[in-house]
Structures are given as structure tokens and as C-alpha cells.
């Protein structure tokens, strides 16, 4: 292996990527822009859920509970209705997510010490939003109950729950999603850079010329891999700085462990990209292959929905996905304060994926000719 060979091929690859202004832009600008937009957009937390109230009760208790609901940042009461007929149009047309209905006897029941029913009708079209909103509302009602019991000398339930969340103490979605965006963006960029690199030369016929140069297949492989890894490392660093400074996600664990994770992740995705590229005959096939890898890799990585909820067979498939391991590493280092020891089980599968895909790509360079 000659260093000079590798470096001159890497130089040529960089030039091919960066010479064209438009392709420079497509590699650099979208990840940064997307980090900002998605970082703000992707949250499961709900603010100002639109609510309608149907209050048939004239007592003070319902007004007190309503004031609490209105005081919560999660809800804003937009409509007041005075009949059951008003409920359906508001929910059907998505003007409100939920309707709260007080019985005429609500305050009277409460004063008498009978359970006072509070009816909630909610739009379940997005079941996760519905469940989150119901959880917020339940917290408000539990708080109200506790205060009512204290003020009226009633005994509360004999057991109480003291809940605490570890690592993400205020349960902010953003702390969970933003580290995940890093992984997805790096994956997209490295695959874009590598997946077309061989296919383009094949389609233009210059790959045959590369094969007759004194470059050995290993040198060819390393030279083709370098641009993806270098660009990935630079972008990852930039995105991490933005994540910590701008989105205020903590960085509690070992930074060397994080960088080892990034490097191994890049090696494995570059390997996948080069393998796709050397299987493809045309650029269209390479782009299709990249798509077919990126989309499942992002969706089945635990980025937005947990792997534990997937059926067993799909869970096995996720073991082939480098993003799966990388996400555990980023979240482990940022939120949980992990070091090398706890992350070891995430490192070696990426090494394995990288080794297998790179070896495949190198073999295909010479054995797939048209």
C-alpha cells in the first residue's frame, strides 16, 4: 500500500465533489439548515393544545379547575359551547383537540363529597398526541384533587407515587430528538457522498481507467472512503457544537468515546455507501440503493420510535443498522454520561458492519465489470 497513491486518489475525489459549486452546497448547507428546522420541529411535547369547554355547571369548583387548565402552558381554551351538538363539528374539523364537559351537578357533587365526573372527549386521529394531552390533563386533575382534599380536610389515597426521571429530568423531547438528528444527517451526507462515487465513474467509463492504473484495490477503497469520512467528521463536529450551544443539550460523558463512536459509524456507513455504489451499474440504481438503505435505517433505528416496540423479526433486522448503535452512543454520551465501558457493546457491531461492507466493495470493484 502506498500512501502517495491513496492521497492522490483522495485528492481527486475531493476535487470531484467540491469543484462543482452546486454539489458543494448540497453537501454543506442542507445538514445545517435541517438541524435547525428539525431541531425545533421534532418534539412530542405539546403546547397550547386547542380546547373547547362545555360548562353546564354554575358552581365555583368548575371555574377553579378551568382556571388551572387555562393556567397550564399545555392548553389554551379557544371555544366555549353550550350544547352537546357543538362538540362534533369542532372535533371533526380539527378546530380543537379535546372538549371538556362539566355536568350540571359538578360543583354540587364535589361539595357533597361524591365523585364529580369530568368528561373529556378527545380526537384520537393521532393517538400519541391524544395520549400525551390526556396525560397532561390528568396531572392537572390530580393536582386539583390533592389541593381539594387538603382544603376540605379529606384524607388522600393511602399510597402516593413520587415520580422522578433520570438523565432527562424535565422529560424534554428535544433532548431525545436532537442527538438523533445528528445521526440521521451524518448518515444522509456520507451516503450521498459515497454511494454515487463509483457508480458515476462506472457510468462515465472512467472507472475502467482507474482499474488499469497502478492503484491496488485496497488503495482504491481507502482513497474512495477518505472523503466521506473527512466530510462526516467535520460536519458531525459542527453539528455537535451547535447541539450543545444552541439547543443546550448537555454533554455529560466522555468526548473521546463519542468521537470513537462517530469514526466507527462513519466507517460503517461509508462501507455501506461504497458497497451500494459498486453493485450499481448506473447512477439511478445507486441513488435508489442509497434511498432503500437510508429510509429504513432512519425509521428503524430508534430515532423517533423505540426499537423495543417493534416485532421480534424487525428487531433482528435492526442489528444490521449502524445508526441503531450510533444513536445509543450519542444519547449515552450526551444525556447519560457514559464512557467507553458502558458503550463497548455498541462499538464492535459497527466495526463488523464496516469490515464486511468494505471488503465486499473492494471485491466488487474488480469482479463487477461491464
Amino acid at each position: 500500500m502506498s500512501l502517495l497513491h491513496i492521497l492522490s486518489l483522495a485528492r481527486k475525489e475531493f476535487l470531484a465533489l467540491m469543484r462543482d459549486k452546486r454539489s458543494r452546497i448540497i453537501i454543506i448547507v442542507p445538514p445545517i439548515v435541517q438541524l435547525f428546522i428539525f431541531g425545533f420541529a421534532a418534539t412530542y411535547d405539546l403546547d397550547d393544545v386547542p380546547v373547547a369547554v362545555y360548562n353546564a355547571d354554575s358552581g365555583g369548583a368548575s371555574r377553579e379547575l378551568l382556571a388551572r387548565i387555562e393556567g397550564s402552558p399545555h392548553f389554551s381554551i379557544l371555544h366555549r359551547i353550550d350544547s352537546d351538538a357543538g362538540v362534533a363539528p369542532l372535533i371533526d374539523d380539527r378546530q380543537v383537540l379535546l372538549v371538556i364537559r362539566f355536568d350540571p351537578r359538578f360543583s354540587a357533587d364535589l361539595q357533597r363529597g361524591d365523585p364529580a365526573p369530568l368528561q373529556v372527549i378527545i380526537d384520537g386521529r393521532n393517538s400519541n398526541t391524544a395520549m400525551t394531552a390526556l396525560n397532561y390533563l390528568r396531572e392537572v386533575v390530580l393536582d386539583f384533587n390533592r389541593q381539594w382534599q387538603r382544603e376540605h380536610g379529606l384524607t388522600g389515597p393511602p399510597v402516593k407515587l413520587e415520580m422522578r426521571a433520570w438523565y432527562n429530568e424535565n422529560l424534554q423531547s428535544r433532548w431525545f430528538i436532537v442527538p438523533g438528528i445528528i445521526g440521521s444527517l451524518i448518515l444522509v451526507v456520507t451516503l450521498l457522498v459515497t454511494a454515487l462515487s463509483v457508480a458515476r465513474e462506472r457510468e462515465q467509463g472512467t472507472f475502467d481507467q482507474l482499474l488499469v492504473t497502478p492503484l491496488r484495490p485496497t488503495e482504491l477503497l481507502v482513497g474512495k472512503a477518505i472523503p466521506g469520512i473527512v466530510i462526516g467528521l467535520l460536519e458531525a463536529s459542527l453539528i455537535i457544537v451547535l447541539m450543545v450551544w444552541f439547543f443546550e443539550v448537555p454533554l455529560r460523558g466522555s468526548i473521546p468515546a463519542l468521537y470513537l463512536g462517530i469514526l466507527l459509524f462513519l466507517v460503517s456507513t461509508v462501507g455501506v455507501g461504497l458497497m451500494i455504489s459498486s453493485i450499481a451499474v448506473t447512477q439511478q440504481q445507486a441513488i435508489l440503493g442509497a434511498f432503500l438503505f437510508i429510509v429504513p435505517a432512519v425509521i428503524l433505528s430508534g430515532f423517533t420510535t423505540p426499537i423495543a416496540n417493534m416485532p421480534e423479526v424487525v428487531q433482528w433486522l435492526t442489528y444490521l443498522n449502524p445508526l441503531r448503535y450510533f444513536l445509543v452512543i450519542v444519547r449515552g454520551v450526551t444525556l447519560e454520561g457514559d464512557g467507553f465501558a458502558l458503550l463497548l457493546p455498541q462499538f464492535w457491531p459497527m466495526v463488523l458492519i464496516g469490515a464486511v461492507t468494505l471488503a465486499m466493495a473492494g471485491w466488487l470493484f474488480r469482479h463487477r465489470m461491464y
Partner: protein
Amino acid sequence: MNDRLRRLLGMIRKESLQILRDPSSISIAFVMPVVLLLLFGYGVSLDAKRIPLGIVIEQPDTASQSLAGAFDRSEFFHPQRFDAIQGAQQALAERRIDGILWLRNDFSSRLFSGNEAPIGVFVNGVDSNQANITKGYIQGTWLAWLQHFAAAQGRDLDLPVDMLQRVWFNPALNSRLFLVPGLIAIIMTMIGSLLTAMVVAREWERGTMEALMVTPLYMGEMLAGKLIPYFALGMGGMLVSVAMALFLFDVPLLSPFWLLMACSALFMLVSLAIGLLISIVTRNQFLAGQVALVVSFLPSFLLSGFLFDIHSMPEWVQTITYLVPARYFVAILQTLFLAGPVWPVVLPNAGAMLLMLVILTLLVAKKSYKRLD
């Protein structure tokens, strides 16, 4: 007129032959939706089941066993017992369990002496959404046990305000019912823009564009001739996806089928037009493929309201979501499948897609001309 039709048909025929001879377009249109919908329909779920939960019982007795038993019987939990909190905390740090329920050694004595007996609950908050769901399930199991316990003691558990919830359209809160229609929108966005992103760029790159230019074909005819076969292909993929949603994932369709297909056709046209515009502007397959990937997948996944509630995003991000066609289609699909033909939802969203289509067509017309640069 007759000539024009003949030219158009000729172009359609050429494009169709090209599709048939390169299997990659057909696999984009038919294999991709089937594979992706199978994977995601089963794989993407927000319904937590069998959450690994550590239960620490410092002093086993009837009361603590009965509370732990309630968690054992729940389908939402997969409990593991620990004698001491240290072991459970170690397991939580190693991600072997997602939460801890901690019954201290004075639990029973405080429970029966009328003092409030506290239970410590720790959840791994990294995935805040799952943590919230876990908290909700723990609360629910706890409340049910309390009622059971009070009844066994011959008392009523008096809650001052009793919240009764009714969930419309999806009473079981099954996340698959809204995720599958949303996934159809995302998969179709990608397929639509991928199908056409390469087709004009390819002609430029291979030099066949010049050959097309010297034919009597008008630019509009050429574009229509390219669009029509891909539209048929895309709608075929759409039909397959809808059939899978209905028969495989048991998503109910509460609206007339023609309405669903009409909205889908509109959306498919918008996606194809985006791909075509990318193709015309870039004139380069490498770039066209990259742009199509960047503008279609992640934006439609994260900004369409498919997973994340648009209403809760900051104002400026909400403004950006108006540019994402999947936003309108997701709203239409979730309503058409689960709620029925609600015109106040369908019409504005369909209108927005129509507007996008008009603007895109004008842009395509402006950017495409028979000239060599």
C-alpha cells in the same frame, strides 16, 4: 390536434418502453412501497408493551406482593424483582430496565397506620415520550390497585374529580391506525419525486436531449409524455399501499374510495412535479438524486405532522411546513381513513395541493425550453 396527440402518444410509448426495460423504475414504484410499508407498518409503533420494570421490595409482605402482582398481571409491564435499590439502579444505568418501582421497608406499616406510604418511581427519561407513556401506565396500574385495595378494606376510594375520557376515531389509541396512513404519504412523496427526478437529467447527461430537440415535439408534449407513464406507475404503487393498509393492517376506511383516490392522484402529481422540476433545474443525475433525497425524505418525515404535532412547533417552523406537500396529504389521509369525509378538512388541504401543483407547473414551464446552453 391529431398530430399533437400522435406526438404525445409516441413520447408516452418511448418513455413506457424505457420504464419497462430498466427494472429500477418498476421496482421504485411497486417493490419499494410494499417493502417499506411492511417494514414500517410493523416496525413503527408508539405503543409500549412489556416495558421492562424493576420492582424493589425491601420487605416482602402481603401488601407489597399484591401491588407487585398488579404490575405482573398488566400487559404493559414485564417486571423483574430486586431486593435492594442499588441493584435496580445499576440495571437502569445499564439500560436493562426502563423504570424502577421502589417499595421501601416501611411501606406496609405506613399503609396500615394511615400514614401516606410513598412509592419511589424512577424512569429512564432519555426517550421522553416513552417515559411519559410509562409514567401514565404506572399511574393507571397504581390507581386500579388503590381502588381494589380500598374495596378489599370495605371502603370507597373517593376521588374528588373523576376524569372520564372518550377517545373518538381511535378508541383503543392504537398508534398503527394513524402511523400507517402517514407512512403512505411519506413513502409516496419519496417515490413520486424519485421517479421523475432522474428522467430529464438523464436525457441531458446522455446527450439524448439534443436528439429530442430536433424532433417536432413541443416541450410541453415532451414533459407530459414523461409524466403520464410515471403517474400511472405511481398510482399503481399507491393502490398497492392502500390495499395493504386496509387488508393487512386493518386500518378502517370511513370515506368513499373515489375521494381517497382523487386526493392521492392530486398528491402524486405534486410529487412528480417536484421531481421534474429538480430534474430540469439540475440537468445532472448526481445532483438531482441528492436534491430529491434531501428535500423529500426527512422533511416529509419530520415536518408533515405525521409524528410530531405541527401545532406545537414554533411559528416560523409552522410556516415552513406549509411548503411540505406531505403535510396536506397526511391531514387528508388520517381524516379520510379514521374520521370520514370531513369536507372542512379535505377541501382546504386539497386546495393547497392544487395551488402547489399550479405553481410547480408554472415553474416547470418557465425553466424548460428547447435550447442548448
